């Protein structure tokens, strides 16, 4: 991307290391194959073909990512990785760790999307049919289902894989849109409570487009400052400090707004509760786990590579954002009466804890955050999987009052949900404790002790709504007309079991994954 007006008589084909990009390419290839399946396969075969393609593509990409990290010559002998595709994509150890995390979590989310035992599917038969119309009823009776969600999910996951790997801001912007656009659509595809779902889609779309406009204008300012959109070039320009500082600070601020919106940090969190509540629950699980991991990956890369020399300039602003995020998320969680909104506010507070890892601005901060993201991702997918199982005749019973006495109806499901809640609260012997410990320790090393104090305080506040739900589930009488816990098929069963197993294992023996994250973070990102 080094453009110049000098004319060249021959055009040399750019070197393009396909191998290092293979996990991303495989996911996109599976997505395109999914579109072809949608177009040509007979309706009866479509669903099973889609499931095989999606799960196969994600599993294959995971294997490729692990294999690259283990055997590729760019990583051999402690080398940090390399910048590929004419400087637009950085493939380094943290990127591979983040990509592998996204792929596993996406795999588990696709298991939830594929669930069909308690209803045909979680998705509307015809998104174009007006809710409550005769057309919609016909679609329901005919047993139609939107199988487009599978390729859309794969496109979104492809964008998520590219987003944290993008080494220039244009690639990052394109990846941001590739991951966002399918998510906007999928938010509006819920089978039940369709008006809510469409409203979620509209809110997410308008606010998402608004925030990506800020991101883009920030890119324009930084391009004006450095004359290039490559992260390393921006870092070099900032170090020499010859160009206009106004452009640089405006660029950092606008870019920061775009990225912080995606992770749902206060004051850019307004979309999160509404979107999490309205979207189909499997899609909420995908957003709460994979999108968060991906957005934090990009946030880390931008702030560590492009603005790594300016730590003292961006830190104060991020301190304020992190403190607000931790406190607002946990305090408002107390007032929630809907289980998905409760999990959304909890996710806002968790984003605040991970921001303390970013502010630490050291390798321990990066490795702690990566560990936290993996641990939190599994717990949150498991929690949303359980939300899909508690149902009444109108669909999922999301109001907390209907969860009363769930422990007496189904001790196993209520017990697992309680496990995920205490993991979110960060009680020892769960993954949440190991994650918080890693992140907060890094923040103290990075000189952010007051943030850690706020973080611990916020966790204590956040424990209150969790404990209330646990008490409600186990120590109150079930309502006679209350919801039932449906028996999950293998898909949801595996998702819940994986979430619970990872939550417990990372709580008891966090060391293997923690040292893998440390190993991945030692040299930070390539430039």
């Amino acid at each position, binding site marked *: *991307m*080094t*453009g*110049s*007006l000098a004319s060249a008589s021959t055009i040399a084909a750019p070197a393009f290391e396909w191998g290092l990009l293979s996990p991303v390419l495989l996911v996109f290839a599976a997505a395109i194959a999914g579109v072809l399946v949608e177009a040509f396969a007979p309706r009866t075969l479509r669903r099973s073909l889609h499931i095989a393609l999606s799960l196969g593509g994600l599993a294959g990409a995971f294997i490729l990512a692990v294999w690259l990290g283990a055997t590729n010559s760019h990583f051999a002998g402690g080398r940090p990785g390399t910048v590929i595709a004419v400087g637009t994509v950085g493939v380094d150890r943290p990127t591979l760790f983040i990509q592998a995390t996204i792929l596993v979590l996406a795999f588990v989310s696709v298991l939830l999307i594929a669930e069909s035992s308690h209803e045909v599917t979680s998705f509307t038969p015809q*998104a*174009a049919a*007006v*809710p409550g119309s005769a057309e919609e009823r016909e679609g329901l009776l005919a047993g139609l289902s939107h199988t487009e969600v599978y390729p859309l999910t794969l496109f979104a996951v492809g964008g998520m894989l590219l987003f944290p790997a993008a080494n220039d801001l*244009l690639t990052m*912007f*394109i990846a941001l*849109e590739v991951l966002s*656009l399918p998510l*906007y*659509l999928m938010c*509006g595809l819920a089978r039940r409570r*369709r*008006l*809510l779902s*469409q*409203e*979620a*889609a*509209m*809110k997410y*779309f*308008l606010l998402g*487009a*608004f925030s990506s*406009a*800020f991101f*883009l*204008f920030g*890119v*324009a*300012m930084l*391009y*004006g400052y450095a*004359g*290039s*959109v490559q992260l390393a070039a921006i870092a070099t320009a900032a170090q020499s400090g010859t160009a206009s500082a106004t452009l640089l600070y405006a660029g950092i601020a606008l870019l920061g707004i775009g990225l912080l919106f995606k992770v749902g940090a206060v004051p850019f969190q307004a979309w999160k*509760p*509404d979107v999490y*509540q*309205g979207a189909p629950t499997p899609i909420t699980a995908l957003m709460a786990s994979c999108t968060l991991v991906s957005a934090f990956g990009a946030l880390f890369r931008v702030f560590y590579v492009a603005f790594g020399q300016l730590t003292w300039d961006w830190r104060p602003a991020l301190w304020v954002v992190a403190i607000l995020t931790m406190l607002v998320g946990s305090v408002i969680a107390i*007032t*929630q009466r809907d289980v998905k909104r409760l999990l959304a506010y909890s996710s806002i507070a968790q984003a605040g804890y991970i921001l303390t890892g970013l502010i630490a601005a050291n390798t321990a901060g990066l490795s702690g955050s990566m560990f936290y993201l993996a641990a939190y991702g599994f717990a949150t997918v498991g929690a949303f999987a359980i939300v899909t199982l508690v149902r009444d005749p109108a669909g999922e019973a999301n109001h907390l009052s209907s969860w009363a006495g769930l422990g007496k109806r189904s001790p196993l499901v209520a017990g697992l949900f309680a496990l995920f809640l205490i993991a979110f609260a960060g009680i020892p012997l769960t993954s949440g404790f190991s994650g918080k410990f890693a992140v907060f320790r890094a923040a103290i090393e990075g000189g952010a002790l007051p943030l850690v104090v706020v973080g611990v305080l916020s966790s204590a506040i956040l424990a209150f709504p969790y404990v209330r739900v646990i008490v409600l589930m186990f120590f109150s009488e079930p309502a006679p007309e209350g919801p039932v816990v449906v028996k999950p098929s293998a898909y949801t069963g595996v998702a819940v079991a994986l979430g619970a197993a990872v939550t417990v294992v990372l709580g008891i023996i966090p060391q293997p994954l923690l040292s893998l994250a440390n190993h991945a973070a030692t040299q930070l990102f390539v430039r």
Partner: protein
Amino acid sequence: MVSPAHFIALSVILFVIGAVGVLVRRNAIVVFMCVELMLNAANLAFVAFARMHNGLDGQLIAFFVMVVAAAEVVVGLAILTSIFRARRSASVDDANLMKY
């Protein structure tokens, strides 16, 4: 004499008009048009900066942004029309089923 700096100033003005429009207008379509105005303000800034730096990157980025904006229109209008058909209203104030 009009210098690239003037174009930057204009793009900032357009961006602010777009951002204020998103915040104060109530019709979802108009809100969306304001977002498009913000994207085009960024395009203008890219092209003007490309001129200042004597490079091609900015002009090239503007093309990418146009494609992204077009894709956004496709997705956005699909969502907005489906909402309009269900509610007979495109006001963002009417979409208030979820609160707090």
